[in-house]
């Protein structure tokens, strides 16, 4: 009974929905990145690593220059660099995309860990360095309940939802989008019509770098204001699951991200529920929740969604 009471309390509190939006934001960014990459035919499991680099870079530049927004900008540039490595290995050199993705994750973990001491003087985590403050949307923030959910949020949260619209428009309404979809489905056909298959694939992968890096930056300069080693904690992979569940469509990926975000928010709120008194030692059990939800949902829904036909297959001319 206490459980039902606690869950009911959480569900009726606008705080839960606000946290859901916040928790979804990294998933939305990264899963949109996944969509961009895979829709052109390149599997990118490096999302996790790119996010980590994004989180780290944005904190580093905030630390040196005091501007979190500059940090975000630099995170985008570093994300582009990581994505370029992945694109270069998998498009130009026909590398195994899953393995190069794994390599980049490891590289990101190595580089961020390695640079902690030279830059911040200690391993593990940084001090609170600075973050992007929430902004209040006049008008909306005054509406009861809804105002508490969407009236005052971190600007990056609004940007994430803007990115969904932007991605949807780019993929389904523009010439470039049509070409992206053709390249991920049948690169040979696109090639014979003079579409630059490699160029478009580079674009898709680079976009995934920008977006995943933004997702990572949100974790550090958006939410916490500090960097912790391995702070992405598997979110890149959950984002991949959101992309699959969302059927490689930006809107679908957003909805799936909201679901996984809700799981994280529920976990968070249950742990701090005044009714349940969760002890420190049982918290790990609650932390399993988002991963179990992902596992169940992915296995339940796969097969009903359809990946791009050439996803993960290097395009070799001749």
């Amino acid at each position, binding site marked *: 009974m206490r459980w039902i009471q606690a869950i009911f309390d959480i569900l009726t509190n606008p705080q839960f929905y606000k946290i859901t939006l916040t928790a979804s934001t990294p998933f939305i960014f990264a899963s949109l990145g996944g969509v961009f990459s895979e829709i052109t035919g390149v599997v990118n499991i490096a999302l996790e690593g790119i996010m980590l680099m994004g989180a780290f870079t944005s904190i580093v530049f905030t630390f040196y220059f005091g501007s979190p927004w500059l940090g975000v900008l630099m995170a985008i540039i570093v994300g582009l660099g990581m994505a370029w490595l992945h694109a270069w290995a998998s498009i130009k050199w026909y590398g195994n995309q899953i393995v190069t993705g794994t390599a980049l994750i490891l590289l990101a973990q190595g580089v961020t860990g390695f640079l902690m001491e030279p830059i911040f003087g200690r391993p593990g985590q940084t001090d609170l360095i600075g973050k992007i403050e929430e902004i209040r949307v006049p008008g909306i923030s005054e509406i009861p309940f809804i105002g508490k959910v969407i009236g005052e949020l971190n600007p990056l949260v609004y940007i994430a939802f803007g990115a969904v619209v932007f991605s949807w428009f780019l993929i389904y*309404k*523009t*010439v*470039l*989008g*049509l*070409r992206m*979809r*053709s390249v991920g*489905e*049948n690169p*040979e*056909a*696109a*090639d*014979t*019509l*003079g*579409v630059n298959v490699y160029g478009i694939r580079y674009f898709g992968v680079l976009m995934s770098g920008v977006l995943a890096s933004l997702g990572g930056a949100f974790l550090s300069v958006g939410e916490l204001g500090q960097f912790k080693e391995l702070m992405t904690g598997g979110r890149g992979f959950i984002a991949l699951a959101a992309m699959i569940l969302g059927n490689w469509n930006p809107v679908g990926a957003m909805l799936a991200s909201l679901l996984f975000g809700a799981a994280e928010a529920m976990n968070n709120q249950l742990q701090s529920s005044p009714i349940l008194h969760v002890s420190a030692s049982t918290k790990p059990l609650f932390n399993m929740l988002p991963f179990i939800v992902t596992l169940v949902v992915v296995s339940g829904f796969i097969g009903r969604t359809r990946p*791009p*036909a050439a996803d993960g297959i290097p395009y070799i001319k*001749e």
Partner: protein
Amino acid sequence: MEREFDPRDYAVAMVGITKQFPGVLANDNVTLLVRKGEIHAVVGENGAGKTTLMNQLYGLLRPDSGKIYVFGRELNLKGPRDAINAGIGMVHQHFMLVDNLTVAENIVLGSETRRGVIFDLRQARMRVKELSESYGLMVDVDAKIEDIPVGMQQRVEILKTLYRGAEILILDEPTAVLTPQETEELFEILRKLREAGKTIIFITHKLNEVMAVTDRVTVMRQGKVTGNLITKETNPREIARLMVGREVLLRVEKQPNEPDDVVVEVEDLWVKDNRNLDAVKGVSFYVRAGEIVGIAGVAGNGQTELVEALTGLRKAHKGKYMLLGQDVTNLSARELRLRGLAHIPEDRHKYGLVLDFPNYYNAILGRHDQEPFCRSSFLDHDVILKYTKELFETFDVRPRIPEMPSANLSGGNQQKLVVAREMSSRPKFIVISQPTRGLDIGAIEYIHKTILRLRDENVAVLLVSMELDEVMSLSDRIYVMYEGRFTGEVRPEEVTLEEMGLMMAGHTWEEVRGTVATR
């Protein structure tokens, strides 16, 4: 040549083209001259170098030496885009269509109608509609490619080239997937295009088509041009000789045979395809020992699903399948094999062989866990190697290197390896699907003889082939398949090609005989 060569006389002049691939001289000093407004056939066996030549004309490959002129202008093609700009369009043998895009989107892809960066779908649809009406090429502009029939897909391919302003159309084996009637429709379209002043290069190995629709013929063999002929002044026998380099038997010699007991009996079998739609809709048939039963039909009418259901690769959701008096409906491939089934699959790369395996592993696929190859879970490599060597001798698989990965065998030898393996399992019932696709004439002759030998060894043979000639010349009885049903059961000697064509297009045997009777 009486007068000096002038490239301006020709729509396409490829002169002295040479192209070397690792280990193969694909084009050896080839010259192809095509006049404006003609339908020009390029014929040759598989591997004669036709497609390589065309890929160079379309900018997909670059010649090692030689010159290409189009309408008198020398071209240096760096890619398909250059060829398109020069007015060349190509309809590939395997359609180059994007399945999840619509017809209109496919046609304009690469040269999209646009407003700034935005894709103008409305205008694309309009342009495509106009174009399709002006040439009589009917298509559904809003349908996705994956939902339209093969004939329409081909029209989309032709529209793609016309949309780009092609004056020269290359069609690579365009009739392989069509019924005789659809083929005739295609020929009508080609004639119409010729009237509109287009130049058409028609690649084929089917001689009756050459005779039916072309003006001139260039014959190729082993990378060289062996003949330039005017269609009206030649005959199939002459072309065939130039293609093969020797006299060929266009017919298989077959002794009459008395079939034995019924081995296979199928009753009202229903099978779904990958999209969960009914692909086989209640077929019934039987096969007797010592009999070749053919299944004729155009690709995509349920043959693949039927074969998969009979060989344990797909479940039937209704009906009964009896093998040697036992109900074997929906048994696994393994259990069927243990009961005497063998299977020569239509796609030897996908199903027949594990290409990364050495030959001696592929030689035992399906019997890899049985004696004498495997004893209590341990493979006996000596036995397997010895067996493979014998198999290679008997079936003349070359090169005779059991340790070599099967990926390195030629297509013909890969097929021989599959045939050898399946035949030597001493089957009671063998399902043979598209056994000669992509093989040269020598290998085809060999495979055909082998199939007849199986029959003479009293095996029940089910032969599924899209090559009508093959089914007609090998089978003792034929079922014609259309949209998942049999439209007729006939004996090859009592039916004409035209009647077969009608049945392949959905008319029943009764209807066909009715029309014939009333005519």
